[in-house]
């Protein structure tokens, strides 16, 4: 019997069938590429100078659970010791959700690793809409949409906060003072980004392409090596 991780993945060596992100921005795509069936926008028109809202829903994600999770190295990563802890390594971000569960996402360049054929993995790429908010006013953007304390001065970054943003349960990873990642149930994706843009008009948040994210991660060293 097949593991769910393989559902949606192509069977056999044919061309990758098209995949669609749950998020469609109004902006015109200026540059894009086909990657693994996704149409990935590198750059959108009129991106402005930040803050930026970037769709990363095409990036691979995994759920990994085990009662003795601390003894494991999912995708070769060491499991962060406490809930809320986040480790970035090898282009992957791994965050500890609770006693038995981590969530892993691919933020690096190049192809994501294959899903190992082990019971603890579930491919959750299609489970979430995944977005990044980048730019100096990022805390102001988040303050307009969530009461979560995402930038507490005493807290080591990056860190994970699980809680509501715009009434939607999110996994929020505070990467730095000028960058956060938010993953939420995929169905909310479009409504969520519409809500972010609507609620933060005063801050002039603009949708942007993936390049902004790649440049940002490269610039902050958050990208890790691949």
């Amino acid at each position, binding site marked *: *019997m*097949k*593991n*769910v991780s*393989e*559902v*949606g*993945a*192509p*069977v*056999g060596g*044919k*061309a*990758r*069938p*098209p*995949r*669609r*992100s*749950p998020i469609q921005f109004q902006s015109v795509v200026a540059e894009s590429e086909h990657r693994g*069936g*996704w149409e990935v926008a590198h750059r959108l028109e009129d991106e402005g100078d930040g803050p930026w809202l970037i769709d990363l829903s*095409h990036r691979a994600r995994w*759920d990994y*659970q*085990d*009662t003795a999770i601390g003894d494991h190295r999912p995708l070769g990563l060491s499991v962060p010791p406490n809930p809320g802890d986040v480790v970035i390594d090898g282009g992957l971000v791994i965050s500890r959700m609770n006693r038995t*569960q981590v969530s892993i996402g691919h933020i690096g360049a190049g192809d994501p690793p294959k899903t190992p054929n082990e*019971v603890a993995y*579930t491919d*959750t*790429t*299609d*489970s*979430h809409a995944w977005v990044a908010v980048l730019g100096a006013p990022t805390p102001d953007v988040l*303050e*307009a*949409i969530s*009461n979560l*304390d995402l930038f*507490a*001065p*005493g807290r080591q970054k990056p860190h994970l906060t699980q809680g509501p943003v*715009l009434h*939607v349960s999110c996994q929020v990873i505070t990467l730095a003072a000028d960058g956060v990642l938010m993953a939420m*149930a*995929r*169905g*909310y994706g*479009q*409504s*969520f980004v*519409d*809500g972010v843009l*609507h*609620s*933060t*008009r*005063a*801050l002039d948040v603009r949708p942007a392409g993936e390049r902004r994210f790649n440049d940002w991660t490269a610039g902050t060293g958050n990208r890790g090596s691949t």
Partner: protein
Amino acid sequence: MRRLAPSPTTRVEVDRPVPFRWVGRSIEGCQGDTVASALWNAGVRTFGRSFEYHRPRGLFDLEGEGASQLVAIDGLPNQSAGTTALRAGMSVSAQNVSGDPRSDLYGVLDRFDRWMPAGFYYRRFHRPYRAWPFFQNRMRALAGLGVLDTSSPHDDARRSELYLNADVAVVGGGVSGMAAALAAARPGVRVCLFERRPWLGGHMDWRVRETRGERLYERAHGLAEEVAAHPHIRALTAAPVTGIWGENLVTGFQNGSDADGFDERHWECRARAVIVATGTIERPLVFNHNDRPGVMVSDTAWRLARSYAVRPGMRAVFSVGDDLALEAAVDLASLGIDVAAVADARADGADPELVAALERAGIEFLPGYAASAALGKHAVAGVTIATLDGSDERRFACDLLVANAGRQPDIGALSSAGARFRHSPHTHTFEIESLPADVFAAGRVTGLVDAEAIETSGRRAGLEAFVHLAGGLGAAFPSTDEPSVYAELTKIRAYSSELPGPPAGCGILHGPNLGSGRKAFLDFDEDGTWKNAVQCAEQGFDVPELAKRFGNFGLGPGQYRVPGQNVAMAMAQITGTAIEEIRCTTVRPPLIAPKLATVAGPNHDSYKRTPLHDDQASRGGVFRRAGAWQRARYFSDDHTCRAEIRNVRENVGLLDSSPLGKFRIYGPDAIHALQRVYISDMTKMKPGRCKYSAMCNDTGNIIDDGVVVPMGRDDYYFTTSSNRAASTVEWFRYHTRYDGWNYNLVNLTDTLASINLAGPRARDVLRKVTDADLSNQAFPYIGYREIAVGDGIAARCMRLGFVGELSYELHVGASHAPHVWDLLWSAGEEFGIQPFGLEAQNALRAEKGHVIIGAESEQRVTLLDIGMGWLWSREDTASKKVGAPALRACQDQPNRMKLVGFRVDEGGGSPQDGAIVVDGDDILGFVCTTRYSEALGWQFGMALVKERAIGDGDVAGLEIYENLGGRPRRTRATIVPPHFYDPDGTRLRS
């Protein structure tokens, strides 16, 4: 009127005129004005008419939210003239009157007060009872203050929200608040400061008095600059606090400017400690006609002159009870205003320096005197001032009467933060009795008057708050700083005790020669007079909370601020109760009334879309909210969905069932968890087969149903109803929380889209997009297969038959779903494929006799009652199945409600869902779902009815009753087994 010469405290730009309209007239204010200051400067004295007696009312209190100074602006009622910034082109009008408030037909009501004692309406108008609606409608028409423009959605403002997390929140940006913020703001400490005025500074912002070599306004401005520049302080101005709620959640709103990018925003601040520095409010002096336009509290007169360069009057008389008001008199005189006399209700205790200054200015000072009545018909023309015993009364002509009975702490914010108060015979105010451990008070709200004491109390409160947070939490703060903080705090505590404490207050509430007090107002908002308070007591409503309810004291727009404390003191005086035993009435948020639109904010609706939302929209889907999702309910204007239904029965239809709950459960104890929550024996699952079962609650009601498929060793895939998807993990974990079982759950609801391909041609369509063997032998009914669709998209495929036809449910990765939908669409075109929506599905499944939880079930019926007892594994007690004890308890109970099928008798009408089943005068149950079936040629339905409706024989009749507001319709129906369409299941098995 010509403005006063600008001074360093002036907050307006007198040479930048701002034109606006007042009751249709064009007038001018200047940049920086509030509506009130501009109106007053333009000579407007009457701002509106009072609530009950339609008395003229003017500018009494610039700070207040009281009804007197509420005006309508651009169609928005009840806007505070005193605090709303003037904008060019505003159209301002008066309230509770039509047109210019200087004249009002209803003004005659003021003469009828003798017939309108407190609570009079409870004793009148109801006899004979048929007359009551007439009076009621007259009362309604007279009630209310502003007129809400109900034709406008009031949608033009830019709104936003702000959620702050702070260590210390400071409420009030006066000198003590600013000092507190600066003292608390240390590395690692986040301080937020909220000030309702557009600038920091509090009451020292306009005081020119010099202490310790510095003018007070200079000190205030200096601190404001420090606060603004401080990296750890966020100061919000024009940001009134609406409440301090549980565990220091401070909320409020903020009025923005063009530069802010918003017009108004709702903010909330979760703080670990709160410092309240809200200052004082002036206690209005109660005397006859104390509401005449031209009577105002001292800060209002003072601020008009000092902040707005507006001349509050030509000739002023003061009847006051505190030193600040004396300082105001001296200062106003220095600005060229003729101050005729200053009466001080305190016989002694006035600051000698100020008394000397009054003397120097040639102002007559009358200690032990207070106003007994304001004179003048529409506005103040004079005043009588008398000794407190009333023996010596003197008369002065004036157009400005500055009156107060001293000051009282502005306790609203403190009270909402959980402080308790008791009355002090020294200050004659309600003082803080106790504070929660994480709430601190500073400045004048603690009764202090001395400038140095005020600032020091702020610094001290800031340090106290810091130390409170650091206490036991050394790790949270840089420990290096702590020893010095403790030393500093010790020093400041000692220094505080050397500074002057709260001085004696003004002991009176009302002026001399009050008479019955029939025109002496305690509550300006709803015209509550001293006499009314007496009447409340006489009728037995003699404690403040009852007087408040019976006499409507403190229920108007000004709320607790003035009447809440004064009514308590008035009741004590009237009933002769010791004031110490009196508590003021409860302060209810909001402390300042925000617009609903402001609180609502952008009000974004977060909802879910399926991966096939756009695809269905483009095919004409009509969407409805279903739980978190927007789902296609219809695909045409025909809400009976005949074409959609027919197409599924005859050809093939596509349904987006993506919101279906989908889960993975795995781990060594997964089977135990399944056994606990499902009512069937879940150990009897076979690979490649769907196991259908249900979940019950502890009262045996069905709460969910779905299928479970074994996927591998200790690894299962299961579905739930869409409504339950969000609470399934929670449910499993709850019911196994004591067991220590090792299993994992993954919610795949959004991960996998679900496409239901149903109809006699379903196999023909699917065959075109997959190489998998779909023959009835290879993939029979109830089967589960993993197949590749199109270019190799993996799909979990279930052969189920909810709608009663050959049907495949394809679960594919959400991102692949649009492509799969397109593939099926293209493949199905030759077979007449069409989409169908939830309503068609509903009719189709009902025709088949399949239940929907919540439609054919409710709290009165168990799993057994709705005919699904066959799912229950009765012998299993070891698994402790949720619901099993209740089913056991009810299985033999008589007279329960049962689900039955029925067929409407020929010519019997066409009842709808929600029709009732009756017998004589009794209601026996109701129709859950009923439809006319094209396929059957008759109307079928399912009903929940008491057992006696079913009778003993096989053929029983139901009497169905409907009356939705016209004539009753009765329909006869015959009970039939609830498998109406294809009872043998031939079609779904073929």
